[in-house]
């Protein structure tokens, strides 16, 4: 019997009516660099989260010490606490539908087997690439993270399920300086596969961006058409939709999308899919964090709100089936309904055409602070660090230091003019380049 199955049984032995065990073990290579490698760490960590229900009293206890003795102690403790926490009147039961979906492309053996030396060489080459790019630029902060994760889930209704995932992600920040002019260029990339990670390419792009924006400056405040680059809008989508489409928010009445199922919440060019089985997606997995098979769910189809995202708890509350969206930040946290790979589906124009068809506007290439936008009120707000003014269909002057803002629901319902075909991911969020008829730009 495996460790998690044993834990599940021991929790019942101590007097729980239901039990669940979730074990995760992870290996991370973590490399921080600037003009040289500053830190190269190999982290191996693991932990087990145990949940017990005593009737409608439910709780979680976790430990990173994984041996028979500790599991025994943890099982005893979780039941002891469960017996004294207050009842949750909404509680029904743990997930009874464990299993695997047809998901593929979430594990790459070559990531697990990569040699440290090869990783260090790669990073050194990327640093050199920046130094060779131009005398005006230098790397100021970079991070390469390579991970392999094993997850095991079992509960009192099912035997254990197991999966193995890999991930490679990088961020490179480059500074350019010329006289009194200073600028930063930043690039990121996240993938499941080692061969997809081209750190030198990321480094050159960051250097190029820093150089191009050396003399960027703010423009006057105005309202104008805004084109938002794919990965930037992907991040905005993540901030604005992750909470509101989660059944948890809807049931707690915090979501602006509460009570809007089957109604038009966006224009017909706007289709949002949560795809837990997307090949190679950063959150693609055969089962979610309570062992439920993952799936593809239409959230908004041609502007009509079709579905919320569910874990077992919220699904039972609404009398529907879980959409396989249970997610734990880590083994010591309880699962919550949240997106897997959240995708704005592609349109049919290229980003070049979108620019070409814009007489005057702002092409936003990078922002900061977009995560401070308010998903409850729908107020989108971001500080633009990299943008081009578009004049007569051509990107011209580089712009920085302005903010753009708008009402997200008005933006997707009334102002969305064009949707590109260049879908790209920013972690688990995916979007093509999009154009809005108008947003507010606050500048000089």
């Amino acid at each position: 019997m495996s460790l998690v199955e044993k834990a599940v049984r021991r929790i019942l032995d101590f007097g729980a009516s239901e039990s669940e065990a979730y074990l995760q073990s992870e290996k991370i290579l973590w490399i921080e660099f600037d003009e040289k490698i500053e830190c190269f760490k190999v982290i191996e960590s693991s932990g087990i989260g145990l949940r017990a229900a005593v009737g409608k009293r439910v709780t979680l206890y976790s430990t990173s010490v994984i041996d028979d003795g500790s599991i025994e102690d943890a099982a005893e403790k979780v039941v002891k606490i469960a017996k004294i926490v207050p009842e949750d009147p909404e509680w029904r039961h743990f997930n009874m539908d464990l299993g695997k979906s047809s998901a593929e492309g979430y594990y790459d053996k070559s990531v697990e087997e990569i040699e440290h030396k090869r990783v260090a060489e790669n990073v050194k080459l990327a640093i050199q690439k920046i130094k060779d790019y131009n005398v005006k630029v230098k790397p100021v902060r970079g991070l390469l993270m390579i991970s392999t994760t094993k997850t095991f889930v079992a509960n009192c209704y099912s035997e254990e399920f197991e999966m193995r995932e890999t991930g490679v992600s990088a961020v490179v920040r480059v500074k350019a300086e010329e006289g009194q002019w200073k600028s930063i260029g930043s690039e990121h990339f996240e993938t499941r596969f080692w061969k997809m990670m081209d750190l030198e390419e990321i480094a050159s792009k960051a250097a190029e961006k820093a150089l191009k924006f050396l003399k960027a400056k703010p423009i006057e405040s105005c309202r104008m058409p805004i084109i938002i680059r794919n990965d930037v809008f992907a991040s905005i989508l993540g901030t604005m939709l992750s909470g509101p489409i989660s059944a948890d928010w809807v049931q707690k009445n915090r979501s602006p999308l509460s009570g809007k199922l089957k109604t038009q919440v966006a224009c017909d060019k706007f289709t949002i899919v949560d795809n837990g089985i997307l090949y190679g997606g950063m959150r693609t997995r055969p089962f979610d964090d309570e062992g439920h098979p993952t799936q593809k769910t239409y959230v908004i189809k041609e502007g009509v709100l079709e579905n919320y995202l569910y874990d077992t708890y919220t699904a039972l509350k609404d009398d529907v089936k879980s959409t396989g969206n249970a997610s734990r930040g880590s083994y010591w946290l309880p699962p919550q309904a949240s997106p897997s790979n959240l995708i704005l589906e592609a349109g049919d124009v290229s980003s070049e055409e979108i620019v070409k068809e814009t007489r005057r506007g702002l092409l936003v290439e990078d922002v900061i602070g977009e995560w401070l936008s308010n998903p409850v009120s729908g107020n989108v707000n971001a500080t633009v660090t990299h943008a081009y003014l578009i004049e007569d269909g051509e990107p011209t002057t580089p712009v920085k230091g302005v903010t753009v803002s708008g009402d997200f629901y008005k933006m997707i319902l009334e102002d969305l003019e064009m949707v590109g075909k260049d879908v790209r991911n920013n972690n688990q969020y995916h979007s093509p380049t999009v154009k809005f008829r108008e947003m507010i730009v606050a500048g000089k």
Partner: protein
Amino acid sequence: MEIESNLYSILEKAERSGVSYADVRYQEHYYESILVENKVLRNYSSRKFSGVGIRVFVEGALGYASTCNMSRESLIRALNNAINVARALGKGGEKSLDFETNRAEVRSNFKVDPINVSPEEKISVTLDANKSAFIEDRVKNAATRIGFLKDLRLFMSTVGANVKVETVMSGLWHQSVAKSSMAMEKVGYSESKCAGFEFIASRDWNGFSSNLSKLAIEASEARTPPAGTYMVIVDPDAIGLLLHEAFGHASEGDLISTRESVLFGKVGEKIASEEVTIVDDNVEDGYFYPYDDEGTAKRRVVVVEDGVLRGYLHDTSSASKTNAQSTGNGRAQDFENIPIVRQANYFMQPKDYSFEELVEDVDYGIYVSGKGATGGQVDVGMGTFTFSVGPSKIIRGGKLEETVRGVVVSGLILDTLKTIDAVGKDLTIRTNVFGGCGKMGQTVRVGFGGPHVRVQKMIVGGR
């Protein structure tokens, strides 16, 4: 300890593998917290984690690896990972560092191990304190959290260090939200101590929470002060927060070695009024801190003496880069992180004014209180700060008068320190079991504080 002999053999193996230096850090960490909101238990969370971090130097290159599996096989794999990573970097630029060889076993004072106290008893204290906050119907919301920490750290190195530090901490946090016809105000505060459950048992938490409710009600009925420059009396909480954030970080050796800090190159210069002496040390009321995470004994550092900048805080790396000696300020959040320069207990030394003497010379000013402060922002390169402090009081004709809310203080820390003209004889140092200070993604618990301090000029903005 069986773990100790396993780690010893890992260090021996490291030496045989040709490292110039290696250290291992074993940690065992328990954390428990219980949250009660509006008389209902919301959350009981309990977590245990442990593991080992191994740091090696091979030909001047640093390698690091960690594991939470304590089997011999897994420890050897971690050692090999660390060595392998260092070798992968090739010859490094680090000079050979100067590590201490202390041998010690110390633990913070505690009588009752809070982890062994029954959950029922902990819940009951928290629930009672929460209920006591509802003193009248203007109190709209009350949240109470109790927290306990037990942290064991064992440091061993190839130069012979063997330092074991055990810290036990207990505390309670409470926040009351009050609404009057004027406004809604929340006031949160916590009391923590490096002590066991006896600390919780010895205090009147019902009085603690009801007082915070009174303060929240008072604040909700108060006005905001007119914006302007005021003479202010700053209480120990607020001066502690201000010094830690706006000045303490700037005195951390790593920011000196990269020349990022506003204090770079200023040793020997007068940077504050003569009344000001600032110290970082291991002190009774603060966070228990006899040794750092590099096995270095904590030294008392006089950062500022009678207004003159005397020195910085260092770990072994920043000390070596600036030709100084480590002050025992190398700290890591846990065994998965590498130590960096951090403050321990950072505070201003008391002088000789009584509180009454400080206040009586203020014609018109503000008594700035840290209780209920909600945070702030600093720039260590420029030395600028902005803090939103708690409900405070107007001083008129040398007397404390009405309460004001929404007080935001800001300025340039080096200007502010120069206009301190009187320092009180009291000293309060606080620490916090619920959180700490963040830097480069690592959070560590700290202590801070000082006496009451009079500042001639501080910019105060209403909200």
